[in-house]
């Protein structure tokens, strides 16, 4: 049986993709709690199958697709209020779907190689989490999106809360409350936007497709104030998730306390969903407000880049360091999104995937060390390269990828973003570049302190290298890091269509920014007629 024809339950591909992990989790419920082998088998099988489905989708995807309409399904869910079960992918979401399925496989592989209590629950939580993530990525109905968005919260809450470190309760509550606060705001915004849509068009719909059409055709007919509020609510929800400075404080706590798998998924996928949300919802739906407040976001992003890097440099805990590096890197992505030029957007999308891979790998490897030594302090290691050569190699690859060494994926993403931003605003690009340099410093320092040099801590003598399961988990990531660095074209092609669409939406934004690089009044002068004429393909 080939995967090409595999349609479990006769459902369509996207539904299968989203709910296959849930089915796996349900199957797990029938295994005895003590059966580790069963948990491993079911978890791995499910995640592999899910990956296979995502791969099949990718193979059948036409890169020219400009809007999230591929493999679309559209059924009534709550017809009384015009809420639909509407799924579809474009290049942007598909790239992230692939990232998600790959990382989940990775995480489960790694978990097989480490001693984890209550493994059944652990695996089930990750599978449910995967459903939430995939659902958020393919949902086109805003309410459906919100449902998946919230569904992600609970498994993550459990993952950190049950399998986390000492201060896990504090960390997980903080994570939960921050994210929930943002998303509840978005919830009201969704309701309000639906109301606006109802008033403007006379029919009830929560569909992003309908909304985008209304937004781009001008039928939306929002007052600037209302649009600003809506944009603010959406953006806030996503920025918390990203997380952009100053909303980032939950992230280091969550990362430090989360178990390895949690960290990988958190950094690899969950944060990306923030930027994905910006690209998919906030900016296209409220282009005028986006144009008006874009520079403000840019400023926050710049602060985030420098601040994240700066704080990372001061960390002694490896995980915290990587966490802060994420703050910095994702701020760069946000900057790219705000800049809105073709290169910047491509770079942003590319970097989203790339960062998922590199940071995921970094967390994975830190996790490997932690599982052996139960410490993450850099001072507790030192010169362990000889003891753990494979780990060291992989770590160096990941770190270099993260730093943006040419030939690895990070370089492509950062280069594109910086190039794009440069077109828009030289000063921004300059400041952002500083962040990159700082990034190189702290990551290299980390490698220096932990791996190179003489062995300083006696306890590390018994350190064992990465085992087969863990290696199996790390392997795909390394491969992808290198592959994307050498052949970025496939990924760029994949997202090309959606980037063009996004670019069209953000053209006026870029124009506005270019026209007046700084100063508030630049935004005031932005007029509606600067928006491009609505195009048919935006609608569908």
């Amino acid at each position, binding site marked *: 049986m080939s995967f090409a024809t595999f349609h479990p339950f006769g459902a369509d591909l996207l539904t299968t993709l989203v709910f296959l992990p849930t089915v796996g989790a349900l199957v797990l419920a029938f295994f005895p709690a003590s059966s580790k082998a069963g948990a491993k088998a079911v978890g791995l099988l499910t995640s592999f199958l899910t990956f296979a489905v995502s791969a099949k989708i990718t193979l059948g995807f036409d890169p020219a697709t400009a809007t999230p309409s591929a493999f679309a399904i559209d059924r009534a869910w709550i017809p009384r209020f015009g809420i639909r079960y509407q799924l579809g992918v474009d290049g942007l979401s598909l790239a992230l779907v692939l990232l998600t399925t790959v990382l989940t496989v990775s995480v489960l592989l790694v978990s097989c190689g480490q001693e984890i209590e209550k493994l059944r629950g652990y695996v089930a939580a990750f599978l449910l989490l995967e459903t939430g993530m995939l659902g958020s990525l393919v949902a086109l109905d805003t309410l459906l999106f919100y449902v998946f968005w919230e569904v992600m919260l609970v498994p993550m809450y*459990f993952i950190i809360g049950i399998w986390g470190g000492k201060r896990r309760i504090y960390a997980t509550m903080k994570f939960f409350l921050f994210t929930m606060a943002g998303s509840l705001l978005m919830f009201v915004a969704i309701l309000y936007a639906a109301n606006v849509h109802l008033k403007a068009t006379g029919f009830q719909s929560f569909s992003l497709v309908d909304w985008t059409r209304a937004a781009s055709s001008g039928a939306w007919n929002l007052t600037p104030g209302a649009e600003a509020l809506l944009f603010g609510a959406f953006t806030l929800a996503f920025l918390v998730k990203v997380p952009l400075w100053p909303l980032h404080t939950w992230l280091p706590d969550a990362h430090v306390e989360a178990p390895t798998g949690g960290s990988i998924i958190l950094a690899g996928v969950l944060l990306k969903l923030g930027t994905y949300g910006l690209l998919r919802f906030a900016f296209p739906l409220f282009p005028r407000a986006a144009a008006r407040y874009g520079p403000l976001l840019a400023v926050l992003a710049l602060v985030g880049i420098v601040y994240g890097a700066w704080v990372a440099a001061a960390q002694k805990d490896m995980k915290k360091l990587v966490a802060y590096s994420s703050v910095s890197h994702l701020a760069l992505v946000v900057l790219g999104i705000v800049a809105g030029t073709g290169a910047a957007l491509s770079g942003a999308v590319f970097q989203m995937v790339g960062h998922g891979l590199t940071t995921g790998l970094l967390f994975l490897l830190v996790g490997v060390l932690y599982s052996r030594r139960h410490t993450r302090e850099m001072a507790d290691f030192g010169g362990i390269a000889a003891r753990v050569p494979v780990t060291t190699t992989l770590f160096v690859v990941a770190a270099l990828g993260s730093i943006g060494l040419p030939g690895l994926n990070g370089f492509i993403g950062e280069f594109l973003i910086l190039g794009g931003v440069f077109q828009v605003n030289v000063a921004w690009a300059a400041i952002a570049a500083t962040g990159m340099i700082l990034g190189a410093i702290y990551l290299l320092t980390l490698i220096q302190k932990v791996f190179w040099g003489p062995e300083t801590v006696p306890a590390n003598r018994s350190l064992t290298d990465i085992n087969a399961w863990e290696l199996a988990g790390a392997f795909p990531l390394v491969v992808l890091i290198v592959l994307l660095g050498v052949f970025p074209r496939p990924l760029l092609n994949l997202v090309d269509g959606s980037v063009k669409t996004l670019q069209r939406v953000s053209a006026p934004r870029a124009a506005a920014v270019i026209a007046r690089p700084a100063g508030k009044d630049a935004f005031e002068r932005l007029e509606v007629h600067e928006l491009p004429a609505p195009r048919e393909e935006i609608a569908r």
Partner: protein
Amino acid sequence: MTGFFQVTGADLACVAPEIVLALFASLILLLDAFARPLRTFFPYVALLSLALANLAGRDSTGTFFAGAVESSGLSRYIELVALGAVALAVLGGAAALERDGRNQGEFYALLLFSAAGLILMVRGVDLLVVFLGLELMSLALYVLAAWYRDVPAATEAALKYFLMGALASAFLLYGVATVYGRLGTTRLTRLQGLASGHSLVPFDVLLAAGLLAIVAALSFKIALVPFHGWAPDVYQGMTTPAVTFLSTAPKVGALLVLFRILHALFPSSLPEPWRPLFAIIAVLSILFGNVVALSQRDLKRMLAYSGIAQMGYAAIAVATLTREAFEGVLVFLAGYVVTNAAAFLAVAALSAGEKEPHALGDLAGLGRRHPVAASALTLSMLSLAGLPPTVGFIGKFLVFRAAVDAGLVGLALIGVLGSLISVGYYLRVVYMLWMKEPVREVSLVPEDLLSGAAFLLTSALMLAWGVFPRALLELARGAAAAFTGR
């Protein structure tokens, strides 16, 4: 006046569920008196009666008994809610009562009577019938509150509930009297639009006072701020299986009656002084309930304050008072019934006994030991917090949506804020269950077949309605048919 003692088959069929409930309740009373060894089977008898009552319920519409009661989608809805709530209380309660040697027939009989009163109350088109239904329901609950009459807390709870309830009854009567005096009838069907349409210009103070009294009385039953005082005490002291019923269906019933009366008096839209009033009640209930719940260390008290907050969300729908809001609140309330019932059943299953306090800390580590009950409790906490994909989310969504559509964005925001606060204490329960090591040994009720069924049923409903809410929405839509012309 209809003919003397003329009862048609249609009349009887209309109240068939109540008749079945009353007959079976009497049967159980008789069995308890004359066939005591059959006590173990009482839960099953009660469940059978619920099933029969449900079968006896009809979908037809119309008024019966000379226009005193009606059969409609709404009465069908409350039948389902009331019967469901009793069923859950019976399923979950039997084991706990058995453990304490209090498995008397009166428990089931009173529950059935209470449900009959509840259905009658919502079915009532005449305010007198509404009053009688309310009293029938309440009287049975007063007694159930003191079911463990040797436990001081239980009798105290009964006393407080009784005094508050009696006071509420007096208020309700004052309101009914005023409505009768000013508008000349107690039939809701005849009241239709009298208040806003008649020649009392511009504003009838007495009528307003009467309506206020009715609102206050029903708010007592719903436990809305500032009429919430009794709820925490009563919840804490009352027998947990009985709280399962008390905290769910009666609130739903009172809220529906409130809706009906308001709709009868103001068929077009809620006029000026009333909408802000309900908005204030809603905001106070949400904020007060949630904030105070944060500081509770007794599980049942916490759930009581949570209930106050939940009813605050429902009050948003009252302030909105559109057809959509009504549909939304029906969904919300159905979800609330299942969710809250699950929570209290779990509390009963996870507590050391009625005579013990229900400290939150005692839950520590019980997730492993009692996975079924703990899972149900976890799920209900998530649903109460309004997280998808549970029914709690759908309900809140519909209520907030209606509010936003009616231009009450502020209320929706307050509701959302409340939800955020509520996460703080709902998750504490989850944390205790799963993330904390047990502190002390607690001897629990063994999980029996009935309570297991209850947990599975509630969990399945919470999820199923959250994912596929259509059936529930259809039910709500049928029940909201009374809200025509909005």
